[in-house]
């Protein structure tokens, strides 16, 4: 038990179970119903994928505040292609246009991510500012493309990504499982993953160990951009429309989930398992509170409070999880007193 509680993931697993048990106890007939479980499985993948994007940037000690901007811009580009060209088409044509729209969205995500990566790695901008500025630009382009209104009227095939089930399992959930599994594999089993964690632990040491830091950071932000674009597509498919200001609350939520999942915002430590657990606990809490008749605003309050509580608990264990104290702190996420020992 003590060993389980020593790792942030262990503590989080306990928290998740407690929330699940609590909600099941408070609203047994509704919370445990098939309907609720399915609806939860459809709801969380979109922000969970954004949280994965946040996780990989945070592992390097950075942050990506432009994820929601990238998600909306990619979704809008896909939506414009679908409404402009794909309406009325059937059969192979429809599938081809859909594939093209999805590819275009992914491409936008990749380009946007590369843009962030170059700003951070080549020009040396602090990640907060680079992604804050680029996020405004992406959102701004999305507004300019649509005039601020929603794009809707897609062919029926577009709804598959967000609303269909495959062998009884919701497609968005499958997609999230695939991406989370992939990211976990990349981080734990590939050279790229190792370098990401090395850089996050100590950028200078990683540089001296021969890691091409510039290339590494650009790739990290590119991955984050593509993940954000995928999240945008899921949102688009579920909402059956795309708009420049969708999911604006997801930014905070994505940061919150990553930190809740035990990812160290100073970089160097974080596991996908933790992020998945954090996503589940958030969704259980959110759905449960919804059933208990708690307003959306109260949910925001509880999320914020949960974040602070988990931070206070985790703050004590970060220094021990890190091999060495950071030599050069990332601007903007300056170590505060008590965490730099």
């Amino acid at each position, binding site marked *: 038990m003590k060993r389980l509680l020593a790792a942030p993931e262990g503590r989080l697993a306990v928290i998740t179970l407690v929330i699940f048990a609590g909600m099941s106890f408070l609203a047994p007939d509704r919370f445990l119903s098939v309907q609720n479980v399915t609806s939860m499985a459809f709801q969380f993948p979109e922000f969970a994928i954004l949280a994965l994007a946040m996780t990989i940037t945070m592992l390097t000690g950075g942050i990506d505040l432009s994820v929601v901007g990238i998600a909306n811009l990619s979704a809008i580009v896909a939506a414009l292609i679908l409404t402009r060209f794909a309406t009325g088409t059937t059969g192979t044509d429809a599938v081809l246009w859909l594939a093209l729209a999805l590819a275009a969205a992914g491409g936008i995500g990749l380009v946007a991510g590369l843009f962030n990566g170059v700003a951070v790695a080549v020009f*040396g901008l602090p990640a907060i*500012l680079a992604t804050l*500025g680029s996020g405004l630009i992406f959102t*701004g382009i999305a507004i300019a493309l649509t005039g601020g209104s929603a794009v809707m009227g897609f062919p029926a095939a577009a709804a598959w990504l967000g609303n269909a089930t495959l062998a009884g399992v919701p497609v968005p959930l499958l997609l999230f499982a695939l991406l989370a599994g992939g990211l976990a594999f990349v981080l734990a089993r590939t050279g790229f993953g190792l370098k990401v964690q090395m850089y996050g632990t100590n950028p200078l040491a990683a540089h001296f160990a021969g890691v091409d830091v510039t290339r590494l950071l650009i790739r990290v932000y590119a991955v984050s951009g593509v993940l954000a674009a995928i999240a945008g597509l899921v949102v688009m498919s579920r909402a059956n429309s795309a708009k420049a200001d969708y999911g604006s609350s997801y930014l905070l939520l994505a940061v919150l989930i990553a*930190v809740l999942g035990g990812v160290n915002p100073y970089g160097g430590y974080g596991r996908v398992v933790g992020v998945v657990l954090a996503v589940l606990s958030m969704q259980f809490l959110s759905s449960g509170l919804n059933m208990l008749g708690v307003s959306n605003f109260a949910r925001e309050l509880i999320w914020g409070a949960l974040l602070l509580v988990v931070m*206070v608990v985790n703050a004590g264990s970060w220094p021990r999880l890190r091999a060495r104290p950071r030599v050069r702190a990332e601007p903007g996420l*300056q170590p505060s007193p008590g965490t730099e020992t």
Partner: protein
Amino acid sequence: MKLDLTRNETLVAGVILAFCAIAAVVDPGFLSMPTLTDLLRGGIVLGIFAVGAMLVLVSGGIDVSFTAVAAFAMYTTTLLLVNWAPGLPWWAAFLVAMAIGALLGAFNGLFIAGFGLPTLIVTLGTLSIFRGFLLTFVGSKLISNLPPGMRDFSRLMMVRGTNADGSFYSLPWAFAFLVGVVVVTWTILYRTMLGRAIFAMGGSMESARRIGIPVRATQFFVYVYVGTMAGLAGIIHASMARVANPFDLVGLELSVIAAVVLGGARLAGGYGTLTGTLLGVALIVLVRNSLIVLGIPSTWQSVAIGILILIGTGLPAWQAKRAAARAA
């Protein structure tokens, strides 16, 4: 005085002048009293926020919760006045709002200075806590019937006049509060030991601790001060808009930080000037109010601000990187 092109202040001032020059050519009516008073009026709330945000950046932290603090203080104060003390004069309302702001700031300070948590994460958390608490437990309905004290304040004008074409222009006394906030903050930063401590802390937390600066107390002060400023900005916003809307202000935080960063304050801490901050605010207000004069549709506003942030912070960062590469 030598013109230093590497300084953000010079860059921003240059962009502002260029903007105004082009705008004046495109629309001769641009250079007029109404434009000036509109800009100054638009800069009051943003300016007070920015001065507070700059102080945090100088101390080496970042605060994104101040808009929620402002909305909380503004709405709660208005509600208190409407329900229990409608006869209170405006300055009492201002004091109440500032006290509420200070209290919420102390909450931030507790987690940041007390527990030593990263400032961005804490203030992201408190942003949703303050907003969630306000909308759940205090209220989510618009108050359009402001107490008489606040209405009186909104009628106090410093300058009032009529343009040649018969249009009115005016500058409310609220502007004096921005001036006051700037003067007080200048005094703290440059004329007190506290100000030195804030700069030292931003430069290097560890060094500041080793030379005997009480870093925790100083950090705590910084967040209380920002909270107080946010409370003031909130109540001024409500008085000037003549309505207390709990959904107002939140969402403005990134624009404010953008203004401060444009003005040359560094996210890494230890550097920032009031002149730069005010110039940054002026530029953001100019872009928000007058982009349309240059023939750029207002839908491109946030693109323009985003580009300004990237260039404004990218140039110094790029120069610093090159200088470091040369030294190595």
